[in-house]
Structures are given as structure tokens and as C-alpha cells.
């Protein structure tokens, strides 16, 4: 496919920045609305991108989230410099979390992040390099209903 049919935007997310948490997923939602993506897909994309964003805010220093839209699919790629995930299989289980007491007090760390992304994505890949960082690959097809 030619490049001109792909919309691509990069967002920088800062770890620990709870007051701006959620802004990236809101921007993504607005872009999807502007190009006229179906609202049921927008909901899934917003939830997936929000969970990915919160993952960075809670565990990493910095991350780049790249949104790609083609006429066929949405693709979100997130690369952070956090600790990675030791046991990806475990992290995909609902209720599993390594969040600190403080994070839980704020209402985060319910262990629903990655499972929630999986639930809302058509394809979801987690590539973890413990100690170096984490990369998430989220794909949602535009003609699917999930």
C-alpha cells in the first residue's frame, strides 16, 4: 500500500505523570472520530490505548505510542523503557498486578490492564525484554465487530 493512505502519529507518554494520564487516548479518540471510524471500534481503541497509556504512567519513565490508521485497520505500537514484564502469561491473567499499595489506593492496579487490551484488540502482541522495556502491538480491524 502506498504511504499516503496511512495516517501516522506519534505520542510521547511520560511515566508518573498522573495528571496528564488519559490525554493521549483522548487525542486518539478525536482523530478516529474525525476520519469517521465506527463508534464501536472507537470505544475499543480508546479503552486499549488508555490501558496501554496507564501502563506507562505507572511503570515506565517514558514511552512512544505510535498510531497508524489505514483503510483496513488501526494499529497501536507502544514502546517503553520500563522494567518489562517477567512473566507475560501471568500478566495477561485478570487480577494479576504488580502495582504498589500506593497505586492501588489511587484506584489503579486492579490487574485488568493487559487483559482489557486483549479483550478489545483483534491482535495483541507483548514483547518484553525484562530490564530494558516493553513493547505492545495492538491491531483492530475496521471491518470487524469484535
Amino acid at each position, binding site marked *: 500500500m502506498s504511504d499516503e*493512505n496511512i495516517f501516522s502519529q506519534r505520542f510521547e507518554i511520560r511515566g508518573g505523570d498522573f495528571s496528564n494520564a488519559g490525554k493521549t487516548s483522548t487525542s486518539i479518540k478525536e482523530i478516529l*472520530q474525525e476520519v469517521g471510524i465506527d463508534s464501536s471500534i472507537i470505544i475499543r481503541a480508546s479503552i486499549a490505548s488508555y490501558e496501554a497509556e496507564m501502563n506507562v504512567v505507572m511503570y515506565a519513565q517514558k514511552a512512544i505510542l505510535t498510531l497508524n490508521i489505514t483503510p483496513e485497520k488501526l494499529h497501536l505500537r507502544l514502546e517503553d523503557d520500563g522494567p518489562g514484564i517477567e512473566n507475560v502469561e501471568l500478566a495477561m491473567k485478570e487480577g494479576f498486578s504488580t502495582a504498589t499499595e500506593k497505586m492501588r489506593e489511587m484506584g489503579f492496579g486492579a490487574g485488568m490492564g493487559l487483559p482489557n487490551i486483549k479483550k478489545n484488540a483483534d491482535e495483541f502482541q507483548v514483547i518484553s525484554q525484562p530490564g530494558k522495556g516493553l513493547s505492545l502491538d495492538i491491531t483492530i480491524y475496521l471491518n470487524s465487530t469484535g
Partner: protein
Amino acid sequence: MSQYFHSIRIDPEKCNGRMKCLRMCPTQAIRIRDGKAVIIEEKCIDCGECITVCPHNAIIPLTDPFGESSRFRHTVVMPSPALYAQFGREILPEKILAGIKKLGFDDVFDLAFTCGEVSFAIQEYLREYNGPKPLISNVCPTIVRLIQVKYPALIDQVIPIDTPRELAAREIKKEKSKSLGLREEDVGIFYLTPCPVKMISIKQPAEKGKSHIDGAIAISDFYGPLLSAMEDIEKRSYRESLKSICILGMGWAMVGGICRTLRLKNSLAVSGLNQVLKVFDDMERGKLKNIDFIEAYSCPQGCVGGSLTVENLYISYNKILKLIETLEFEQIKACPDIREVRKLYKEKYFLLEGKLEPRPLTPLDKDLTRAIRKRKEKEQIFKSLPKIDCGVCGAPSCLTFAEDVVRGDAEVGDCIFNLPQKFAELSGELSELLNKSVIARSHKPGIDNPNNKKDE
């Protein structure tokens, strides 16, 4: 006729293009074109912020003038409970209702009572409901429109119980036409409104074909005449008059009032459009799932903060609050019978007549491939702009300007910062033209000599 009816009009005679509304509009629905403000209809959610901010009163709410009721054979007025907060503490609903009747209407109806019924109906609905949470109150038409336009994902969480004003109007029409032997269309129902948006919910309901209400009169237009009409009404004691007030109904005038009077523990109340946007953003991300019910109002402090009210919104909020506290203290509950409400609820008496559908904004292009290209183009244009949101181009921000350009509603050259470039291009073209004409002229014999011209 345009697709969407709005209760707001801009008077071009009065508009000076001062851009206050341009900056204030929460949905970026205003542009300045040829020095005058214009409204982009599909983006407007009728919140009324522009009316309040305009220094020239050039933005006019389209309510019905007071006294436009002659086409009906029988007229009934129903005031929003926010009216009860517009006067001194000793003036209670009973007196206000008597005052309204003196102004030439056949009857007056205390809407607070129906509000009480609907409070109970909401309680019933919440008890049975097990879909996604929280449910959102639909009392504020601006909030309902905001959800239709910006948060289509939340639309199924808007509570499908009809509003008190619609339910009351429906019942009054039925009863009056029966008892007076009139046709329903001969009974005129007028709503005394604290805000212009109720007017559109009457002219163009968000979910059904036609409203049961025939007109809306601004509280601010009604205030003066009502004040003098109440002057010689016999005074009953404060305590005596308290006995007829439905505490549940009074809650509808202010933010948090429904939750408080129903004693809903797991609820949330939010007012002011910018605050509502924040809460809805959180909701859309799946937060707030532990909350059962959200009361959301576009106006700060709820309906008492409507742009067509008279009293300062904090004072009127406080009046309602004090009244509720007094009624709680005195244990006065002049409210509908909950058993009766439950019976009606089972008969689907309170259910909304139509279904609320999303109203997403027109995308940049109908074709996704082209829309994606335009979105890229928008990003590129935006990057080239100064990003100071000066508004001189007529758009509220550089970002909206970039969007206007890709939609074909504006040109890049409309940006004042592109003027030097435009000027350079123009002067380039001009000198090129001049050069050409000089060359052309020099080919014409004799024209270079001014003396020849004289001779012609």
C-alpha cells in the same frame, strides 16, 4: 430547512465580531465570517455559553415571548423548579404558582411534584438495571446532545426515563381535554425555562418526533410581571406553606439534588460543561464503573445556573439547598405515593417514547481513504501555523482552522501569519505581470514615448 433546530440566533446587526463567543464555545461551533459570528449547526449543542458571554447581546435565545398563548383555548403553565429559587426565602412555591395564575393563564401546574415521581421512577430503574454503569441523567438536554455528538459510546447509559416536563405535559393534555371537552391541541402547555436549550428539546426532541409542550418562556422575561403579580397575594405562614413542597422535586433545580433527595449513595453529580467533559472522558475509558448514577448539568450549579435565570446562581443554589435542609429537618414529604409510582412504572408510564441515537459529526470525508489523507493534510497545515490561537482567521484555534482548510471552508491564506508569504507571492506575480506588459508594450512602436500618447 436545516437539519438541526437551534434555540440560539445571532443578530448580525448587533454582532461586532468581538470573538468572545468564538473563544468560549466548548464545541468549537462558532466562526467569524466577514466580521460576524456564525454557528456551525451540527456542532452546536445549545449550551448557551455564547449568550452569556456576548457583550452586545447579539446572541438571542429563541424562547416564546410572554403573552403568546392566544391560539389556545386553555393554557397551563409549568415552571421549572429553578423558578422557586429566584425570589426571597419567604416566597415559597405556593405563592409563586398563585402569582403565575394571576398573569392570565387558565391554570398552573407544580412540576416539582412530577419531578418527585420521576425521582422514584429513576430509583426503580436503577434497582432493576444490570447493564454497563453508571447511568446518566437525561434532564439536561445539552448533556444529552453532548453525548449524541461527542460520546456516542455512552448513549446506552443515558437513562431511558422521560423527563418530568414531558411526562407532565402529556398528562395535563390528556386530563384537560377530557375534563373540558377540548381537543388536545387546544390545550396550550407552556414551560417556564431557566435555559434556552429546553426550547430545542421542545422544538426538536433528541429522541422522538414531537414534544408535548407547546412553548417555553424565559424565566427572565417572566420575572418582572410575576414579581408585581405576587405583591397583593395573601400571605400564609412560612411553616404552613412548606407543607405542600415536594422535597424530591426541589432536588431537580440544582446539581446533586436528585441524588441527595433520593439518598443515592453510589452517585456522582457534576455541573459546568468543562467539568462534565472530564467526567465523561473518564467514563469512556471505563473508569467510574462502580458509580450507579451520574447527574450532569451543562450549567454550573445545575438548572439554577441557567442563562435565562435572574438570581445569582450561587445564591439560588443556596436557597434550594436551605429549603431542602429545612424540609428534611421538618420531615415534610409532600411527595407522590411511591406505591402509585411503582404501579405506573410497571405499566411503562415513565419510559421514553423514542430511542436516543448517536449524532456523530460529519467526518473529514465519507470515504475512509480520503478522510485519512485529509487528516494527514490537516496535521501538516497545523504544523505550519503559529499555534497562538489568535482567532483573526475566524476560527477559535489553529487546529480548528487547519480542519476548516481541509474541509474546504477556509484557505491557508486566511491566516494572518501567512500574509507576508502571500504578499511575496502576490508581488512576485505582479512584477512578473508588469515585466510581461513592459515587454509587450516595448513591441508596440511609439508607445514608449509619452509624447505620442498626447497626440492620440
